[in-house]
């Protein structure tokens, strides 16, 4: 048998029908994740056609994109920003109830950002095919799943048939050698990969992340890395599962247990790229050369070390990005005045991210001119953080501690910046207007964002991380 990559192994195992010249492959989907924004039209299409949801048992729904992160109203109802967002959530509740789909509803301990909560619940397992009407579905690839975002029409296809029509993507391997230096986070590695690949460097490909630096990452850090694969245009990002993966998954609610667990692990251990597996494209990076990163333009690949100077624009687009950000080429951006700091999202809204923030904020104060929002990625993250007393550290420092949701990552729920404000954000997109009209977004790691909050300016996190002060 010929050598296969991890991606090909998972792909081949899910072929209901192989592709031909004229027809795409029919790919079986093990897990379909649904949320309120990209599903209503899919459900209504099926209703119009009189088609039922084929496998509600393989489908799970949460509400995250347009949900408020502020406390409930006095009457106990969620404080929606407007009637449309409320209608979206209520439509999801109704569609799930009718189809028999399990929904992580308002009072569920599993409610949260779709890509944060599904792994926590053990819904994301190695070797699965996972889809969601959301481009950051690549996050689940951290477990060795083939996970990618789909459009609403395809959401309808999966609801109706549990299958998707897909052409086989190309494969790419990004090997990262060495180990990250202290003070350099998985998010910095991710931004360094984006800078190396460019905004369309991964188009048409599934990326496998490999190498010593990737193996050394914990599960939450691996999710941060896979999460942003789409920012290089890639369909998906994957990491071969290993002991770190299995340990993280064991005992989670929907993960197999007992004899089924042992059987599953034996199966998962076959999920790696064979030695001679071919890749359509390969790049190699060195983790030892990576520093805390920050973006300076209006696309996630425009990233550089926080302590370097903004590079000269190579194109009219670069120029436009710099103009939008009001940054000058050849000048450092450390020292730029910060208005808002956002901690959260499916990139960096997990417990380890909040711990990194707390390490910087403990015994310190958020700068008086900075508004800081800390939004846990899920209800489980919120509870775990509170159990450790992180909320206390945040509130004492002057930050706002919110309810879980996507919040300022997509700015649909009312959490957003004002025109012209500079936002340091741990999310994944710095597109013009992503966090509100005219808002200037700088992407960074949780530690860097926290350092910026304290300093009131774009700052290097490393000095803050050496000796945390005691409160």
């Amino acid at each position, binding site marked *: 048998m010929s050598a296969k990559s991890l991606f090909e192994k998972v792909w081949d195992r899910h072929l*209901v*029908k192989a592709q031909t010249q*004229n*027809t*795409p492959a*029919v790919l*079986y989907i093990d897990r379909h994740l649904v949320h309120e*924004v*990209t599903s*209503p*039209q899919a459900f*209504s*299409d099926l209703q119009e056609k009189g*088609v039922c949801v084929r496998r509600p048992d393989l489908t799970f729904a949460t509400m995250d994109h*347009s949900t408020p992160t502020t406390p409930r109203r006095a009457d106990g109802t969620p404080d929606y920003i*407007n009637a*449309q*967002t409320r*209608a*979206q959530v209520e*439509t999801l509740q109704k569609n799930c109830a009718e189809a028999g789909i399990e929904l992580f509803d308002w009072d569920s301990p599993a409610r949260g950002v779709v890509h944060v909560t599904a792994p926590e619940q053990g819904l994301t397992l190695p070797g699965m095919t996972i889809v969601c*009407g*959301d*481009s950051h579905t690549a996050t689940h690839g951290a477990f060795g799943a083939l996970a990618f*975002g*789909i*459009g*609403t*029409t*395809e959401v309808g*296809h999966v609801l*109706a*048939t*549990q*299958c998707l*029509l897909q*052409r086989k*993507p190309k494969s790419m391997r990004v090997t990262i050698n060495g180990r990250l230096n202290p003070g350099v986070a998985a998010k910095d590695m991710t931004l360094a990969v984006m800078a190396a690949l460019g*905004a*369309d460097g991964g*188009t*048409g490909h599934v990326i496998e992340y490999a190498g010593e630096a990737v193996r050394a990452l914990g599960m939450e850090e691996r999710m941060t890395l896979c999460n942003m694969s*789409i920012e290089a*245009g890639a*369909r998906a990002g994957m990491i071969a599962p290993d002991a770190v993966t299995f340990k993280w998954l064991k005992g989670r609610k929907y993960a197999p247990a007992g004899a089924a667990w042992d059987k599953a692990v034996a199966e998962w251990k076959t999920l790696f790229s064979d030695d001679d597996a071919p890749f359509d494209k390969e790049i190699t990076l060195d983790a030892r050369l990576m520093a805390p990163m920050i973006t300076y333009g209006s*696309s996630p690949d425009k990233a550089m070390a926080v302590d370097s100077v903004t590079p000269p624009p190579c*194109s*009219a*687009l670069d120029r436009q990005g710099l103009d939008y950000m009001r940054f000058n080429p050849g000048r450092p951006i450390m020292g730029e005045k910060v208005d808002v700091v956002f901690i959260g999202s499916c990139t960096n809204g997990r417990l380890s991210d909040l711990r990194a923030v707390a390490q910087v904020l403990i015994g310190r104060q958020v700068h008086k001119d900075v508004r800081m929002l800390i939004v846990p990625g899920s209800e489980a993250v919120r509870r775990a953080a509170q159990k450790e007393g992180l909320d206390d550290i945040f509130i004492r420092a002057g930050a706002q501690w919110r309810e879980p949701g996507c919040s300022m990552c*997509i*700015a*649909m729920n009312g959490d957003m910046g004002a*025109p012209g404000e500079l936002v340091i954000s741990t999310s994944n*997109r710095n*597109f*013009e*207007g*992503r966090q509100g*009209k*005219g808002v200037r977004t700088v992407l960074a790691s949780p530690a860097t964002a926290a350092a910026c909050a304290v300093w009131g300016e774009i700052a290097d996190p490393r000095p803050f991380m050496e000796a945390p002060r005691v409160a």
Partner: protein
Amino acid sequence: MSHKNPSHEKFERLTSKTIVLDQDNIDTDQIIPARYLTCTSRDGLGQSLFYDWRFDEAGQPRNSDPLAGKDARTHRILVAGNNFGCGSSREHAPWALTGFGFAAIISTKIADIFKSNALKNALLPIELDADAHADLVAAPGAELVIDLKACTVEMPGRWVRDFTIEPFGRQCLLDGVDPLGFLQNCEADIARYEAAL
């Protein structure tokens, strides 16, 4: 009333003028800002197309509005820079473009998920070589003939270029059929696959 998914109408040939937006990496947040995704139908999204480029903070039209004065009935082809449609998987992006009146996007590279979403909504995602693209950028308002059967774009009097497009999506458009039907016809194979799990 929700309007029907337009992918089930036959599509063969389009003769129309172009609107040029010569910028690379036009992402889905520019095509339709997230705050306009709070809908539960596909209606009216054309009004939100490129909203922040067309309207200022007070909702007044900008002088620089790239679509100003363009008649969507005669200008149905958008010529855009490299890597068009990057970013999110929101199908609201092609819905906004078709809602405005566009029937084809021409670029040198179109992002994967956008391309797949566009084709399902009878919005042709066409990738051309850099030379042909440069000709189109230099001639905003040019009338083109797009032939989906022959897979050609013609700039009359100048050139005819072939383009490649995912053959299954193309056939569905030519025949006016819903691709869901193809999947539903695989039911026996799907059931067999599930039984073997």
